C-alpha cells in the first residue's frame, strides 16, 4: 500500500517537472500557485523572446553552439523545433547580436531550470504534507 503511494508521489513529481519544462510556470499552476505561475511565464517568455528579437532565431544553433543550446533547451522542449529550423545554417548570425541573443535565451533557460527544480521541491513538500494529513 505504502509502495503504491510512493510510486504515485514520484509520478506526481515527474509530471510536475515535465509540465514546468514544457510551459514555463505551469508547474506552479498545477500546485495552485497562480500568481507565481503568471509571473514566471511572463518573465521567462519575455526574456527568451527579447533574445530571439535581438539575435534572430539564428542564436539557437544546435550544431555550432552546443553548450548554449543545452541551456536554451531548458526553456521548453519546443526550442528543439526552432533548432531544427536553424540547423541548416539558413539564419547565420555573428558578432554582438549573436552574443547578446545567446546570453538572453540561455539565461532564460537556466532561470526556467531553477523554476523546474523549485516546482518539484514544492510538489515534494505538498506530497509530504498530504501524507501527514
Amino acid at each position, binding site marked *: 500500500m505504502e509502495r503504491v503511494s510512493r510510486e504515485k508521489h514520484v509520478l506526481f513529481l515527474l509530471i510536475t517537472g515535465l509540465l514546468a519544462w514544457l510551459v514555463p510556470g505551469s508547474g506552479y499552476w498545477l500546485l495552485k500557485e497562480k*500568481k*507565481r505561475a503568471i*509571473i*514566471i511565464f511572463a*518573465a*521567462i517568455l*519575455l*526574456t527568451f523572446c*527579447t533574445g*530571439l*528579437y*535581438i*539575435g*534572430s*532565431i*539564428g542564436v539557437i544553433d544546435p550544431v555550432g553552439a552546443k553548450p548554449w543550446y543545452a541551456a536554451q533547451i531548458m526553456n521548453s522542449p519546443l526550442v528543439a523545433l526552432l533548432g531544427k529550423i536553424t540547423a541548416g545554417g539558413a*539564419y547565420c*548570425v555573428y*558578432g*554582438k*547580436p*549573436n552574443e*547578446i*541573443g545567446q*546570453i*538572453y535565451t540561455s*539565461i*532564460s533557460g537556466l*532561470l526556467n531550470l*531553477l*523554476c523546474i527544480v*523549485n516546482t518539484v521541491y514544492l510538489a515534494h513538500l505538498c506530497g509530504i504534507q498530504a501524507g501527514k494529513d
Partner: protein
Amino acid sequence: MSIETVFILAGFTSPIRLGTGPQSLLWMLPLIAAIAVVYKTTKLPKIKAGNFLKETVTLFVSIVIFIVITALILYAFDWLIIK
C-alpha cells in the same frame, strides 16, 4: 495570417543592428530585471505586490551596484598595469 503578424514574425528572422560602444552595456539591465523577478518569485513565501516589488527592486539595484564595483576594480587594475 494578417500582415501585422507576418511583420512581427519577420522581426525574429534577422538580427537587430547593435553598436559595440559603451551604451551596448545597457542591454544588461533588462536581463538583470528578469533574473531579479524570477529569483524573487521562487524565493518569497507569499507573493504580495508591495513586498514583491520592494524585494525585486532591492535585488536589481544590488546586482547593478555589484557589477559597477567589479567593473571599476577591473578598470583600476587595467589602469595600474598600463601605467
